[in-house]
């Protein structure tokens, strides 16, 4: 079964790698290169899952989560950040993120089991 997964990631190359990886597992993907686009995209069509980066231009991950909470969305949000501070993990979880992963610690293979868990 195909789902739409929204990828909010300002590194275009990485965003496309993630998208390609998920497409390998038969999923549909949308890419938002900053937080603002991500908000627009989710408001237009709620995704099955949001993979959210923290450090992004215009509106960062926290800003997106704020919007997510305000709108009362319920789709799972998985943080994919390279910020490894516990503070960020805590704050994101408080704002509704289901999980928090450090991208550079993951291999491409590690991604699908995480996403699959929340589908």
């Amino acid at each position: 079964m195909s789902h739409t997964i929204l990828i909010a990631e300002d590194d275009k190359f990485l965003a496309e790698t993630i998208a390609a990886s998920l497409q390998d597992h038969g999923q549909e993907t949308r890419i938002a290169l900053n937080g603002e686009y991500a908000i627009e995209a989710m408001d237009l069509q709620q995704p099955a899952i949001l993979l959210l980066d923290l450090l992004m231009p215009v509106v960062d991950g926290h800003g997106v989560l704020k919007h997510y909470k305000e709108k009362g969305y319920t789709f799972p949000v998985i943080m994919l950040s390279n910020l490894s501070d516990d503070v960020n993990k805590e704050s994101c979880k408080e704002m509704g993120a289901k999980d928090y992963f450090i991208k550079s610690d993951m291999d491409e293979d590690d991604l699908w089991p995480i996403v699959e868990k929340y589908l």
Partner: protein
Amino acid sequence: MNKHPELGSNLSEQDFNALLTALGSTALVSMTDVKGNILYINDTFVKVSKYKREELIGQNHRILKSGHQPQEIFDDLWRTISSGKIWRGEIKNKAKDGSYYWVDTSIAPVADPKTKKIDRYIAVRFLITERKEQEENFEATLQALNETALVSMTDAKGNILYANDKFVEVSKYKREELIGQNHRILKSEHQSQEIFDHLWETISSGKIWRGEIKNKAKDGSYYWVDTSIAPILNDVGVPDRYIAIRFLITDQKNTSEKLESIIESSDDAIISKNLRGKILSWNSGAEKLYGYNEQEMVGQDIRLIAPDALKDEIDVILEKLCNGERVEHFETQRRKKDGEIIDISMTVSPLIDSTGQIFGASTIARDITEKKKKESTLAATLASLNQAALVSMTDLQGNITYANDKFVEVSKYKREELIGQNHRILKSGHQPQEIFDDLWGTISDGRTWRGEIENKAKDGSFYWVDTTITPILNAQYVSTGYMAVRFLITDKKEAELKLQKAFGDIQKFMLAVERSYETTVITDTNGIIQYVNPAFTKLTGYTAKEAIGKNPRVLQSGKTPKAVYENMWSLIANGESFVSDELVNKRKDGSEYYADIAIYPVMEGGKPQFFVAIQRDVTQRKKEERAKAEFVSIASHQLRTPLTAIRWSLGRFSKNLPDNIDDPSKTLLDAAMNASKRMGETINAMLNMSRLAAGKIAPTITDVHFNTLLKEMCHELEPQYTAKHITVDIQCSEEWSLRTDEKLLKEIINNLLTNAIKYTPPQGKISIGIRKDDPLLIIDIADNGYGIPKAQQENIFSKFFRADNVLDKEPDGNGIGLYLVKELAKLLGGNVTFVSKEGTGTTFTVTLPLAPESL
């Protein structure tokens, strides 16, 4: 031919000249005109009159008049010579210098041979000044004698033939009552007949008698006369008359009578004796002094009161007296009647009788035993001063004229090197010139100076002297030099200087603290502030006045964990110091700052006496550290993002390759993936290190089942050690659990296990032992690997350090792991140690509290 007919003789020219020459050498010869104006004078005239010849020629002779002689003489003179006769007489003239001279003068008129008229006078004068003066003196003496003395003449029996006015006046008889009377009517009857017998015996034998006679006047009053009676001898040499000259000496006599009573009542011993030493008189003062009374002593020999050793001295004194000398303030000793020897000072004067003969001596003596005692005390004082003090004398320029033994000894110069030298050779050069200026100003002003001087001895050593310098004044109170008395005070000065230095050191310390930029607080053992320095006020806003007496907790912001203070108190109360840079303090104005604080207890007798706290505001440093940590955090993120892209791309590439891809390509791809993975690990390690340094890692304490955790970790590492055929043996008999931060503990164990695998060669063995040593859990991780070289063991926990012996075997290490292990263990309240031998293996031991008290 007679050239000089006026002389009334027919002398030859030659004879005349000879006469003139002879006359000229002894007589004053002059010629005047008829008015008396001088025409000629000879050399003698010039010499006697003291005028120059040219001053006299043309002058009238009257300028030489003394004015002492009556005008009649000159009237007679002029009358005589103008009548053509020669005048002779005695004239007193006045020389130019005001002195007088007498001349026996003969003046002859000379007539012009042609006119026979007197036109000149020639005067020949012989000097008779000496004779005239004697005559004048004699007359004056006679006159004075007649005025002052009683002159009388008697016949051989003493009947008065003549009495002068003075005699009449003093005797109060009329002259007619006296003449014809025997002189004895004037006798006072107060004098012994012996005197008169002696008188008559003397004069009747033709000699002059002299003595003092007391006479009685007509009115019954008495008068003393110093009487000289001279016999006048007749043709056959027998005295037939006597002339008596008497001088009134009543006043004198009265005085000497008074003197006698003074002598008698004087406290001084007054003794008279004759030239042989026989005592003539002995007053009550003498009785008091010597203990003998007048009856005992008059007629005795004066030597009686001289101690045996000094008897010769009497002869010497008497001999001096015979020569008319006085002996003044002569200090000697005499023996009292009771035998006691006393010190006396005596003045001895010759006694002279009325004829001027020395017939004895009077001695005035005074007891000076007490004075002597004082003097000998003074002498003893001086002697001890001489031993104790450096005594010297200088002239007005400071050149040494005397130096005592002590001075020589202390200065280490020889005496001959000092004498004549200026005292300044002893100057140490350590004292300011003002001292010496003051010294010289004082003593040259005639005053005494006192002060402390540092001098330099010949050998270069220094000594301090308490110095008193006094000008030496002569009778006119003028300084002739200086005398200095110095006492050695080197010991005292050195002690003083030491004290000063110690005080100086304390002052330096005080200043160092006062001026320090580090805030310093001293509290008592209860924590009450005793002292704060200015830096404290600058940092906190509290003045010393506000802070002293308060507890430093006024600075607490409430943001420092209580546990920190508890830890601090337990440390300093036990004599240990406390250091922390994590305290958040509050200023007086409420603003906060990070304090880097060190508290040292100052111990004495094993107990803290007070505490010294030094703190520094490290807010800025903390801010910088945070900024740095943030930078590292963001920089890491920026590195991680492309790294993720590489990793994931490589992963996808590898997965999409056909299985039959040739081996070399597959190997290259694997290498790239491993490298990117290691890079990720390094970034993580550096990030951890930076977080640790920034204090950003806060442990989260939970219950941790250590056995389970260990098994999980070993399982995760299994692919790595099995690849090297290394066996891992866990020796664990019990289930261990502890309260700690699971993630950090995992990081510690993971690092140590990874290292053990990395640095153990294939076929090696790793053993993990767990035991409890309450309150600690002890974990040993032992390998039989390469080991750590001994020389490098102390650096093994340093950042970025890697041992030499593994650099070629495992080039991948980053040198951060063991540093993190150590720091994390400390963070968890534990520690990591190791034992290692190169080539044998290493055992790391982790100790962790089973339940940390405050984390």
